[in-house]
């Protein structure tokens, strides 16, 4: 092309420098931050290079899992205990959060009640259920009930927030119609709003249940019932084949529940008109995912 090219009369622009400088700054910040953290944590090259071997040493002992031993010790029962904790915890969270959500939604609640309820949701979401359990254990004693309470209370935060968003996304026409007939606020909520949000809210409950199954497994590690305690004690005895069995059974149950719950959720959502926008969904997905993996918002 160079041969046939005729020079253009328009001057060529010069490349902008802003982008490059910004990229360099970000890279520099990452390097400095990383270096500062490495030195602060006393992470030496020797440790970094040695760690994969240490980890592999343990991971390879997880297989084959000692299934017989695990079954004898009632690990399956422990996993189910985690599921029960999650189930009852979710129900407690659902019952507490639904009325509160109506008090937090911009389109149906007055300002003076809305603000404190929203802040309550935020505060609850900020405290991990593990911390809630830490506080509850001395009061209720060790065992599944402490874990159930912790999960129930923590669930109020996310379930309340999601339900609020669902309420804010509804068509207020029916509500207006009920007000026009002289209905009370409560009847407006019950007959105007609730039927619209119920499918999506039910699917949130199921979603939260999936999250809570993982959470309750973890709670067992500090003695709040369920499979976590089993993992801790087997790790303490360095009985790795048994650890492998505990992990395997947990993963199996978790994935089974995820699949079942996701199927039901899809059917619920497909059978109902969508009540919230897609951007909300993306946000919630990110948040719930964080919860799924144990990180709380």
């Amino acid at each position, binding site marked *: *092309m160079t041969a046939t090219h005729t020079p*253009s009369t*328009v001057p060529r622009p010069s490349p902008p420098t802003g982008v490059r400088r910004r990229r360099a700054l970000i890279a520099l910040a990452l390097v400095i931050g990383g270096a500062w953290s490495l030195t602060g944590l006393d992470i030496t090259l020797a440790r970094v290079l040695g760690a994969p071997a240490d980890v592999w040493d343990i991971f390879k002992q997880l297989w084959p899992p000692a299934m017989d031993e695990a079954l004898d010790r009632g690990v399956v029962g422990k996993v189910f205990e985690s599921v029960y904790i999650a189930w009852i915890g979710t129900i407690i969270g659902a019952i507490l959060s639904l009325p509160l959500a109506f008090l937090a939604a911009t389109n149906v609640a007055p300002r003076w009640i809305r603000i404190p309820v929203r802040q309550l949701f935020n505060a609850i979401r900020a405290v991990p259920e593990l911390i809630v359990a830490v506080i509850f254990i001395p009061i209720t004693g060790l065992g599944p009930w402490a874990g159930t309470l912790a999960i129930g209370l923590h669930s109020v935060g996310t379930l309340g927030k999601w339900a609020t968003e669902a309420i804010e996304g509804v068509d207020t026409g029916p509500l207006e119609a009920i007000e026009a007939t002289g209905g009370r606020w409560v009847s407006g909520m019950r007959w105007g709003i609730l039927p619209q949000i119920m499918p999506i809210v039910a699917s949130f409950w199921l979603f939260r249940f999936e999250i809570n199954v993982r959470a309750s497994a973890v709670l067992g590690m500090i003695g709040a019932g369920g499979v976590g305690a089993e993992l801790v004690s087997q790790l303490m005895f360095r009985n790795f084949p048994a650890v492998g069995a505990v992990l395997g059974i947990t993963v199996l149950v978790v994935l089974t529940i995820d699949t079942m719950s996701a199927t039901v959720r899809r059917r619920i959502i497909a059978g109902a008109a969508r009540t919230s926008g897609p951007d909300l969904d993306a946000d919630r997905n990110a948040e719930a995912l964080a919860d799924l993996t144990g990180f709380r918002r």
Partner: protein
Amino acid sequence: MIRFEDVSVTYRGGVQALRGLDLTIEDGEFIVIVGLSGAGKSTLLRALNGLVPATGGSITVDDTEVVGASAAELRTLRSQIGMIFQTFNLVNRTSVLNNVLMGRLGTVPAWRSTLGLWPADDRERAMQALERVGIVEKAYVRASNLSGGQQQRVGIARALVQEPSVMLADEPVASLDPVTSRQVMSDLQRINRDLGITTIVNLHYLDLAREFGSRLVGLRDGVLVFDGDIADVDDDTFMEIYGRAIRDDDLVGAEDDLT
């Protein structure tokens, strides 16, 4: 020279997009392909550069067989064939220059392009391509900040920078208004004449086809139903290709708003 011999394309769902197509295109020709949507125009172009694999027959570009070519052979072939798309297919969040440099992906070593270390002469080629389509001043602007007509020119520059021997344009003006459509078509025509690049354009608009084409190919339900000089084409020919009378929306018109 491009030669289609008894080419057929059947999609996985069982839809037959092309049936027994025979077509020979000489170097430097400017060919317009018309037909209703779904007639197989896009499939024909994409079969030529292997984006859609032909399920039967033989397609040769110069002496390269496209049907059954290996991945490496296809890459070499594609690097010699420029393609322009109906929806421009630009990367919106990056600069015009980076979009044009995409045209060099087939020749620049993978590690260099991946790291963004484009050779200086490739940058020079990209600048020249932008000058040729008249938007060099936009080189460092984000592609999403351009108008539709400007975006399509970036698309043309991206194809030009490949220094191709063949240029494929898939409905290049379907997303543009009449005035811009004519500009883009005349850009293509000029490039065809100046650089002698074989150009194959899919068009829906019959008046544009008449205005800019020299040879016309008509497709109907995946079958070639017309192939001849544009001068011999009259309304009956279009009737035959479209299977119905010509309507207003088959014409880009002069000042009509078609956005």
